[in-house]
């Protein structure tokens, strides 16, 4: 299956990535080559095969419902927000969210 430049642009939009006009043909070409490699899978009939998500077919451990929190939650927040690009009054700031 080969991919078109338009599909690359639509996919980039979903992934919040920008592909510059000058790069689009090269990106398309490289990704098409990878998809060609990937398409070797299509030669195999897997209709009877269960997909394998976890190799050990393990099951989920469920955590007891207990609160685990530091004594000073404000201090912890401040630690986390020290490494944040923009905060105010304990909130993370982003350009206006319009619904």
């Amino acid at each position: 299956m080969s991919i078109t430049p338009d599909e690359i642009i639509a996919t980039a939009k979903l992934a919040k990535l920008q592909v510059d006009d000058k790069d689009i043909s090269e990106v398309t070409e490289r990704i098409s080559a990878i998809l060609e490699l990937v398409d070797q899978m299509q030669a195999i009939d897997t209709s009877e095969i269960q997909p394998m998500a976890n190799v050990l077919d393990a099951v989920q451990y469920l955590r007891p419902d207990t609160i685990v929190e530091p004594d000073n939650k404000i201090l912890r927040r401040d630690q986390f927000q020290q490494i944040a690009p923009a905060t105010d009054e304990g909130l993370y700031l982003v350009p206006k969210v319009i619904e």
Partner: protein
Amino acid sequence: MTALHQLTLAEIHQGLAQKDFSSREITQHLLDRIRSLDKTYNCFITLDKKGALEAADAADSLLAKGSEGALLGVPFAHKDIFCTNGIRTSCGSKMLDNFVPPYDATVVAKLKNQGVVMLGKTNMDEFAMGSSNETSFYGAVKNPWDTNRVPGGSSGGSAAAIAARLTPAATGTDTGGSIRQPAALCGITGLKPTYGRVSRYGMIAFASSLDQGGPMARTAEDAAILLNAMAGYDNKDSTCTDIPVPDYTAELTQPLKGLRIGLPREYFDERLNEDMAQTVHCALAELEKLGATLIDVDLPNSALSVPAYYVIAPAEASSNLSRFDGVRYGYRCNDPKDLEDLYTRTRSEGFGDEVKRRILIGTYALSAGYYDAYYRKAQQIRRLINQDFVSAFEQVDIIAGPTSPSPAFKFGSKNNDPVSMYLEDIYTIAVNLAGLPGMSIPAGIVDKMPVGLQLVGNYFAEAKLLNVAHQYQTVTDWHKASPID
């Protein structure tokens, strides 16, 4: 006396215990070496000199009080994918160039508890996506055997640092071969444990169902000592397995008599160059001499492992890397004009080309209409690959073959052709898809460059792999070959 930087972990432990030298002495020695040599190799992204010397002093005072512990006071390095409290953790990316996590990865905490002295954080392919270390935001690592050649990737910084005797050991992570392939290309020993053996908490995710952290060192014995400290259940990682951790050093010296070694026909076909094939066969002959039997096995679906991997890994990565949005940490573009602009420019400026390429492939593979043809199909192929190994392990105890199709290649020779770069991991990827433990040990020299022998074990059979590797290393010297005095 052997120079301090040529000592293995086990030898350092002995030296510290016998007061031949202090932790501060060896730590300072290695920091000095890094300062003079790493300008050439570029193995480290961040050094923690102050923290290392403090940890060394703390270890020395514990040692003086008679404390023991195989790792107490031993210098060490972490791949820059493991979060380290208070120390920048970049994952080789501009996106996290300013990221100082306020928490430790479980593996980091476990090693810290053992009294390890962390020298710094090693260079890597950006978000572990690469087989040559050329995708790092901090520039490529140079192979200490030949600085015109790649060290392999993505744990290239760890592998090269060990080979250049800048650290006796380090952590690595392996999603498609990222411990084993650089270990092979740099002539060191690396182990990827069974999926679920080592906690992934705090290890920045690339492909969650494939990623696994493991030890990189010069010998199998050192790898065993490290795995003892790294392995084990963690209630912060749902995919971490709750089964007891054996003492991996206990069975190192078991004789190999009666050991059945499977040789996958598919790993010895025309794609493997002749010199490589010959080297691997020589290594296998040594194992035969130790009492092992060689048996041909089939892994009929192994050709499908690279295609399946290049759906599963990018798909998971595309989702795992969505959290890098410029809101809570990491890089943020200047003056975003609106929310869309914040997201798009932050991610386009913060990620490198290979990362963006894989996000695009993964996003495409998961998008409406393609899920069944790509992701679901790849997970089905994954089961077939798994079944191949299950059948093989009914006949043999371990599987052996080359780690990579060729020795380290020259810079720039593959990074313009992603597909040929991806095929570099042709022998390692299936092991990740099946979740099995795999090792690479130095097994010879081709073109003046080291090459690796790959050993693959059954689930949780790390002790068996380490046993075979150790026995091989007692009768060969390839692991002692050093590119540097």
